[in-house]
């Protein structure tokens, strides 16, 4: 596999598979899923190869039609893009393995169409993270979005209404992005990301730049379901079929967050940073409120799938918060949380889907003493729940740690408090479930103790793999964060990073308790000398 072909080897297999599956499903539906599995396996391997090469300091590019960078469309894979595409393809692979028995129940007769659409969804999302062209990003964004609407609507009439609401809101978000892009294109005349990043600072003084950034950030915030633009999410996630919820709930909002990171910090930051826009408060406070609102609403739910949907709003808020704070630590935390939340929320949706596959229930009461009936799946549930709360050594702890570090170093104590409160709320609603699953009153089934009714292996396998990935990635989080993510993130914000000094001095106010120290986080805004102070 030569380096120049890797980007194509990532995005092309699911795209081709989508076309072939539609034909194949007419004759041999059983082969359709095998084809998608094979295609995704190629993508996973190619993504892993790309990540390996990027970790060694390469950037992989592919030029369409041989046209060089600023004129033609190029794919550019750096460490972040490779990591994101590895995440997308692996979760897609897990969901496709799981889809066998699950789809036979939930989309009987339409498995081929469903699988073809989800293959298109995956290739759209992969395209969003590996493209280096801003208009190409829009096209892939819409491919992913339209297929997502279709997959959600596979859940029936109620789901169609939820999907239609999502379509209206999501298309407005995408149009906002396109509108912002029109401003940037009118100013610079280019669509290539790095070319735009180089040309844009010359126009930084024009108000059009600020308008464009406002439109683009709003557009992606709608796609991410950042509060108060989250209204479409709970219904869409609740009524969609399990596999669709797992794919969309795990990936769709996160890929948009990734695109926002790419456009805001990778493209616009050199022009935006000297303007001193209040991005931290304009994006940060809605995100922070969303963190709390999502958690509180999750507490009020009795339908577990809906509970997870609301908790998604809260956790997307974490990511948006990291992007809003925008220093090196917060951005590393945001990317880590993209990884963490995709893995754990994907796994949780698969587990809840498994419970309703087996027992036809989604309400909380139905989870009573489920640990005896489905020991492995429920152990995975506990693992995911611990990661959602942020308990080491799961990845959820480390992403939250970096986010907290970033908030602290930016001097945003309000955000720190909100992150901690949200952790408590997470613990509240997950321990409520865990207590029910493990220690609830045993329901006698006609006098007999409940018998084990574990999921079939093709559904249990992906759940177990995703759940153990939480621990594996968690243990590897230090090399992942500081070895892999720090460098690309610093290349975004490093040159004009707000220079911060953290000094620890004994507190005089709390005289009696001299042992405690107060973190005096002092912000020296944009001093030209950038201090590489961490580590």
């Amino acid at each position, binding site marked *: 596999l030569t380096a120049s072909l890797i980007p194509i080897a990532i995005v092309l297999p699911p795209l081709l598979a989508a076309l072939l599956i539609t034909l194949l499903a007419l004759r041999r539906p059983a082969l359709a899923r095998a084809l998608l599995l094979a295609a995704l396996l190629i993508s996973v391997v190619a993504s892993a190869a790309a990540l390996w090469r990027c970790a060694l300091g390469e950037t992989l590019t592919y030029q369409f039609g041989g046209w060089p960078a600023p004129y033609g469309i190029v794919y550019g894979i750096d460490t972040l893009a490779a990591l994101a595409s590895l995440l997308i393809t692996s979760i897609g692979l897990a969901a496709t393995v799981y889809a066998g028995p699950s789809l036979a129940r939930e989309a009987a007769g339409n498995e081929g169409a469903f699988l073809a659409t989800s293959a298109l969804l995956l290739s759209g999302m992969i395209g969003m993270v590996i493209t280096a062209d801003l208009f190409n990003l829009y096209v892939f964004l819409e491919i992913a979005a*339209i297929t997502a*609407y279709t997959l959600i609507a596979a859940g029936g009439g109620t789901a*169609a*209404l939820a999907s239609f609401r999502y379509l*209206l809101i999501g298309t407005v978000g995408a149009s906002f992005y396109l509108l912002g892009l029109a401003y940037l294109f009118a100013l610079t005349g280019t669509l290539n990301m790095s070319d735009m990043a180089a040309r844009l600072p010359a126009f930084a003084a024009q108000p059009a730049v600020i308008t464009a950034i406002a439109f683009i950030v709003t557009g992606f915030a709608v796609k991410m379901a950042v509060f108060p633009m989250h209204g479409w999410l709970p219904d869409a996630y609740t009524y969609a079929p399990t596999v669709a919820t797992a794919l969309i709930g795990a990936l769709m909002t996160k890929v948009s967050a990734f695109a926002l990171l790419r456009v805001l910090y990778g493209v616009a930051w050199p022009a935006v940073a000297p303007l001193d826009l209040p991005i931290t408060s304009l994006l940060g406070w809605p995100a922070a409120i969303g963190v709390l609102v999502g958690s509180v609403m999750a507490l009020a739910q009795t339908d577990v799938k809906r509970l997870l949907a609301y908790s998604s709003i809260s956790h997307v808020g974490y990511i948006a918060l990291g992007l809003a704070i925008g220093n090196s630590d917060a951005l590393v935390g945001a990317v880590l949380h993209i990884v963490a939340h995709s893995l754990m929320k994907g796994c949780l949706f698969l587990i809840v889907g498994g419970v309703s596959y087996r027992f036809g229930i989604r309400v909380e009461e139905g989870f009573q003493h489920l640990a005896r009936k489905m020991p492995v799946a429920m152990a995975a549930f506990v693992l995911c729940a611990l990661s959602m709360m942020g308990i080491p050594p799961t990845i959820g702890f480390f992403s939250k740690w970096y986010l907290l570090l970033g908030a602290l170093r930016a001097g945003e104590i309000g955000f720190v408090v909100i992150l901690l409160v949200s952790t408590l709320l997470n613990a509240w609603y997950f321990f409520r479930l865990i207590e029910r699953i493990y220690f609830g009153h045993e329901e006698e089934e006609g006098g007999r103790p409940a018998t084990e009714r574990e999921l079939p292996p093709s559904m249990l396998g992906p759940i177990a793999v995703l759940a153990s990935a939480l621990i594996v990635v968690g243990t590897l989080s230090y090399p992942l964060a500081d070895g892999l993510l720090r460098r690309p993130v610093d290349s975004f914000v490093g040159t004009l990073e707000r220079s911060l000094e953290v000094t620890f001095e004994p507190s005089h106010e709390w005289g009696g308790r001299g042992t405690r120290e107060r973190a005096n986080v002092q912000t020296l805004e944009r001093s030209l000398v950038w201090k590489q102070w961490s580590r």
Partner: protein
Amino acid sequence: MELMEARYEYWMTSGLILLGFYGLFVKRNLVKKLIGLNILQSAVILLFISLAMKSGGTVPILPHHPPHDHAPIVYASPLPHVLMLTAIVVMVATSGVAFALLILIHRRYGTLNEAQLLEQGP
């Protein structure tokens, strides 16, 4: 006022975008909401197309015989047109999916009026 005359196409697109939002948020019928969405998308497409215009510009095709006076030929920029061709395809696909969804909704609920849909619940 001067700005309005010089840049009337921007005011027109702004007006269209606002009209689209009016349809999206005020109208109760889901089909009308979708029409509002289409107006919004069209406005963005028109904005892109207006960026391509040059006064006195002609179609961007290289002539076989260069003009006799060797005057530079002014072209309209072809790039926004090509981009918007793609955007129109996206818009058509979105509308197609949306209409399919509307058919599903109508089958399930028997109405496309938002107020009545909310009454019926899930």
